């Protein structure tokens, strides 16, 4: 549905983003993750037609955003980090204005806006001036403006930034609900938010994509994991030491009178493969693994690691 090819943006001599390519299918929920200044907002602004690339292309349903922006962007709803609000207007007048400039016919405008206000839970503040709303409500009005016209693709740039924990939970729940019927591209530097809402994550650092992966695959294993094995410590240690790419960070004997148990804290590469190797090696030696669990946040491991390297 969205094809991004070789996208590059220079700000003068500075690289904003370089050679970014990815595609997003209909109905996907994708997270753009990266530290501040990585290029997430630059990518989103170009996807939404708010900025033109230096080179590269973006096509939405086969229509190039630069060649035919009005047609290409018809199905995009973009919520920038600071929502574009006319603060001297009240909520319903603002949404009416947005509906008008987005080409929503007058006959259906009122009911359309009422539906959007219900969805974003802002009906109770519809008559209030936007300048008098709290940050949480302003974010929701921003989300409402992106929803006008019910675009099939929602691009949300740091939708929960600056909100208190209660407001964050409410906005996240809202986005999760919306992700059922919309393609959502969400940017954040909050890992838990991406994990919670997104199926796929694209990690950006210094203007380049450093990793693109399904969140579920990443979640299957982080670098650090603990195993508890029934058997003798020295036997298990010897087997584990032979596995390439695996490091025994710590080990302890947990034997009691009847059984020998040992516990290892291991560090390996992220993913399933290393765990499979540990399982196979210990099973061959008839040393059952009674417990295996990942410690820490695997996405965090990768994020910190990769962004450190870059």
């Amino acid at each position, binding site marked *: 549905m969205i094809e991004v090819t070789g996208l590059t943006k220079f700000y003068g001599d500075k690289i904003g983003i370089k050679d970014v390519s990815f595609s997003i299918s209909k109905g996907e929920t994708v997270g753009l993750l990266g530290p501040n200044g990585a290029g997430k907002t630059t990518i989103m602004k170009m996807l939404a037609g708010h900025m033109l690339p230096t080179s590269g292309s973006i096509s939405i349903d086969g229509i190039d955003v630069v060649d035919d922006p009005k047609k290409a962007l018809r199905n995009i709803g973009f919520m920038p980090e600071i929502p*574009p609000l006319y603060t001297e207007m009240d909520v319903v007048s603002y949404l009416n204005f947005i509906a008008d*400039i987005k080409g929503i016919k007058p006959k259906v405008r009122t009911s359309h806006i009422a539906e959007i206000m219900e969805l974003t839970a802002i009906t109770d503040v519809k008559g209030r001036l936007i300048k008098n709303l709290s940050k949480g409500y302003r974010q929701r009005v921003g989300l409402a403006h992106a929803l006008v016209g019910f675009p099939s693709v929602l691009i949300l740039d740091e939708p929960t930034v600056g909100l208190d924990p209660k407001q964050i939970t409410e906005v996240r729940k809202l986005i999760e609900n919306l992700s059922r019927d919309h393609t959502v591209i969400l940017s954040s530097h909050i890992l838990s938010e991406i994990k919670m809402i997104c199926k796929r994550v694209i990690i950006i650092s210094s203007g380049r994509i450093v990793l693109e992966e399904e969140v579920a695959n990443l979640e299957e294993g982080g670098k650090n994991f603990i195993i508890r094995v029934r058997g003798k410590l020295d036997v298990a240690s010897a087997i584990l030491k032979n596995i390439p790419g695996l490091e025994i960070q710590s080990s302890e004997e947990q034997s009691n009178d009847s059984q020998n148990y040992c516990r290892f804290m291991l560090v390996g590469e992220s993913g399933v493969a290393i765990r499979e190797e540990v399982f196979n090696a210990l099973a061959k030696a008839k040393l059952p693994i009674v417990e295996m669990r990942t410690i820490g946040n695997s996405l965090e491991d990768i994020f910190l690691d990769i962004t450190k390297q870059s």
Partner: protein
Amino acid sequence: MFIVFKKEVSTFFSTPFGFIFMGIFLLLSGIMFFTYNLLGGGGDMNGLFGLLSNISFMVFPILTIKLFADERKAGTEPLLLTSRLSPLQIVLGKYLAAVFVFVASLAATIVYVIILKIYGFPDLKAIAASYIGFLLLGMAFTAVSTFTSSLADNYVTAAIASFGGLVGFVLIGVFSRSVQTPVISDILSALAITRQYDSFIKGVFSLGPIFYFIGFIVIFITLSVFSLERRRFN
């Protein structure tokens, strides 16, 4: 275009700008009416419009400084540029809203004409010509200010650029009367929009100056559209 026009007019009167412009404009015109007509006993509006054309330029930036600066501050400019509206519709909507406030202020001065009619024998045709001329001059001033404001990101820069632009045109009008050097005086005369207004003050209603003003307005609106389109390329 109408939706932008409506929004801008509403903003003029939900913020101080509309009231400030009307207040200052009516104060200036009131002082001149008082001086030329009530104290001076003049039965026409030549003195009032003559001086107003050379002083009122100072007020026109008030109409335009927020037209683009507010959008840029609030981040709403890309919203308009990616909507169904063309840059021309956006510029025209904003320009006409500013002109609307000017026209409303000018319309309020009709009360002076009524006073003259009650107490004197004004030449209504001449007064009508003066009004039409001043309307066109004001629209030209607004077009210049709209363009200079479209180049700015904030009120201060917009105000300085607009004020500077209008001072420039008024000074050209002043110099064009005194400079006699062949080519230079022709160029200055061509740019002197306040001099085009002279024939209207005399009560003469001729097409030449009308087309001049219309052409002038079209040029500056077109420049404003280019300025807005250029911003999309960021």
